[in-house]
């Protein structure tokens, strides 16, 4: 069960609309290392985790990533607010206006639509937690590339918050990887043993 909270995790602000930057930041909405990929990856991996702690962490970080997806959507919404078809064309994002107008759609910065191929679930907790740590680093790098490409101090500030969350999540996944490795050593755990209960 999920409950919606009628507020963002943190305010997202822009100084002025900037369609060209919206075209780039959309990748954190529906790109390979974006927030949709992150939330679905973690929430989906919960079912094959061996400990209560690992199930909790994936639930909590997966839920926070859903909140981040809404924050990125808010940025795109504000960066395109009031833009007309000509503004989209000038920004090289006429394709967005043609197919979606001001509607939100999950693509990367090159217009490639979101696909489940972006996320992995091998069912092996060590493999999956290692994948999650890599995912956090890829998201961190993408946020750095985005921050380098805007001069708007409010947009930079908004993106820095999300950048910092990737660093914290990486830290927690690292701690969980150690914990789960310890658990598996103690329990001589293999996939087959786990299925037998």
């Amino acid at each position, binding site marked *: 069960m999920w409950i919606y909270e*009628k*507020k*963002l995790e943190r*305010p997202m602000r822009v100084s002025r609309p900037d369609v060209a930057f919206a075209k780039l930041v959309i990748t954190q909405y529906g790109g390979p290392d974006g927030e949709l990929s992150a939330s679905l990856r973690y929430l989906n991996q919960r079912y094959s985790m061996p400990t209560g702690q690992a199930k*909790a*962490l994936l639930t*909590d970080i997966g839920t926070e990533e859903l909140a981040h997806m*809404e924050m990125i959507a808010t940025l795109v919404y504000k960066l395109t607010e009031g833009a007309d078809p000509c503004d989209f064309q000038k920004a090289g994002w006429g394709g967005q206006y043609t197919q979606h107008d001001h509607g939100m759609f999950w693509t990367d910065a090159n217009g490639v639509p979101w696909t489940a191929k972006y996320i992995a679930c091998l069912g092996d907790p060590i493999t999956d937690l290692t994948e999650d740590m890599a995912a956090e680093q890829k998201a961190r790098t993408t946020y750095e590339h985005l921050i380098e490409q805007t001069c708007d101090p409010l947009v930079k500030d908004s993106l820095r918050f999300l950048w910092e969350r990737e660093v914290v999540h990486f830290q*927690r996944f690292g701690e*969980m990887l150690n914990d789960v490795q310890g658990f598996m050593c103690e329990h001589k755990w293999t996939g087959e043993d786990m299925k037998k209960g």
Partner: protein
Amino acid sequence: MVCEEQKKMLCRLQEMEFVAIELNLYLDTHPCDEEAINDYNCAVKMIKRLTKEYEEAYGPLMHFGMGGFSKEPWQWVEEPWPWEM
């Protein structure tokens, strides 16, 4: 339109909820840290108080019976939505 007072109240709630999120994730990997559990429980108390104050002024923050009471007419549909603020 959103008044400055509403933004201010929401901001205080967001700050305290951020404290709770951070402690929550930390406790997932450090479940025996008594001091952090105490801090988390303090944050919960503050969030409950701030949420109640905000909801009494501006309507429910959560749906499906998990938020506060609604005045008439149904306050959940009131704008602005979060991305519009």
